[in-house]
């Protein structure tokens, strides 16, 4: 399986990874090699096998819907790249 530069560019876009053309070319080769290894899955007979999403086959545990104290906003915003008056700042989204 060989991925083209355009396919890698598309995957990088889906993953929101900003990569330059040299990086795209390198990743194309590496990802192709990885997908070659993964391709051996095709050979496995999985007729009537249920997909396994959880190693213990347990259903997600439910909890009571009640408010619990959490670390306060100041603590979380102290580590943010940019905040003002309790909100996170990002580049202007709407012109």
């Amino acid at each position, binding site marked *: 399986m060989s991925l083209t530069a355009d396919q890698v560019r598309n995957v990088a876009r889906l993953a929101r990874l900003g990569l330059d053309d040299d990086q795209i070319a390198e990743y194309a080769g590496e990802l192709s090699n990885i997908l070659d290894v993964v391709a051996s899955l095709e050979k496995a007979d999985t007729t009537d096998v249920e997909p396994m999403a959880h190693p213990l086959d*347990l259903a997600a545990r439910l909890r009571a819907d009640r408010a619990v104290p959490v670390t306060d906003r100041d603590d979380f915003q102290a*580590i943010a*790249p940019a905040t003002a008056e309790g909100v996170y700042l990002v580049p202007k989204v709407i012109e």
Partner: protein
Amino acid sequence: MSHDRSIRDMVAAVAAGKTSAAELTTHYLDRIAAHDETLNTLISGCADTARERAVAIDAGAAADTPLAGLPIAHKDIFCMRGTRTSCGSRMLDNFVAPYDATVVERLAAAGTVTLGKTNMDEFAMGSSNETSFYGPVRNPWNTDYVPGGSSGGSAAAVAAGLVPAATGTDTGGSIRQPAALCGVTGIKPTYGRVSRYGMIAFASSLDQGGCFARSADDCAHVLQAMAGFDERDSTCVEREVPDYVGALDAQGDDYLKGMRVGLPKEYFAEGLDDASRQVIDAAIAEFEARGAEIVEITLPHTELAVSTYYVLAPAEASSNLARFDGVRYGYRCENPVDLEDLYTRSRGEGFGREVQRRIMVGAYVLSAGYYDAYYLKAQKTRRLIAQDFTNAFENVDLIAAPVTQAPAFKLGEKLDDPVSMYLNDVYTLPASLAGLPGMSVPAGFVDGLPVGLQLLAPWFEEARLLGAAHAYQQTTDWHTKRPAGFE
């Protein structure tokens, strides 16, 4: 010397007033100062808080706790309030955790003193500790060699006697493999045994916290404090934690007598290095000499483990790591022109190559048109692999096998060849996919480099693993060996 004492002895000595938490803390911090410039095991230090904490413990702050005064280190994947928690990544180089992981909280409540946070492969993705933003860890047995990964810092720190015990996490072998390569004892509990709350997620259906120490008895003490239900982790299992330490105390010399130990033939086939095989054979002979019944078993879907894992783990990683967007915490690129630029450049610059590779593999296998062929298919082969173990454990009590195909490799040897690095994990991935508990126990050396014996037990039978490893360590001394220069 103080750093060769068991955890049991150290804790008893502190309790009896024969030594103090401050003395222990100083002893290990001095060793870190002397050796860690070479090894690079600790990346987020907390020496000052450790000294303060030790003084507080000596003043009675942790009275009646099981591990009062015990120095430990945490893998830098566990959030620790007020301390940088980097996960080995530039992305979190400036991240000071606003809360404690449950593992950190429980070990602190048990009386431990945290000396530092250990180096690791970036976001736990790697088998050599070379993908860390902070540079590789070096193997104390030979500093030209890798310590294994991803919990390489924890394993190397324990091996070098820089700390008596350290936490780690295992997604596809990240506790067992570095434990093997560094010659220390490591345990990865059953998925769900230890809370994942505050442990930075890589692949949520696989990640499990555990620990490294010098012996099974030491590991039992640490695991005892870590394990147990936590309502803040929805996958943590509500099930009583046995008395691991008490069970070892009560264990007789005949513990292995009559135990059925299975050797999976797929783990002894082509690929296993001859010299490593001899070490494993000798370890198994010791089990047999102690009365264990050795039987050959088959885990026929073993060959699917690498491909299954390298679909599922990257898929989960691409989803988990979507949260690192440069908005609320972590790395943000300079002068983003718009929101898209903020996301793509922060992630392009903040993540290293191996992490980007895995995110892209994950995004690819989950993308439209490929989901059934890769992700769904891998979930099915995962069941086949898990079913192999269910079948095997109908006939045996324990599985014994190598951890790796060969001892540690040289720094740089596999770094440019991701596929060769991935294939290295072939003996540890199956148990991870099945969610089983596993250990690596020091079993000997090849050319001066340690070899680990892997033990696997049925789900939630950590006590049996610890018991078998402890029994083995009563008549062997591989676990007591110390690398030259670190005595």
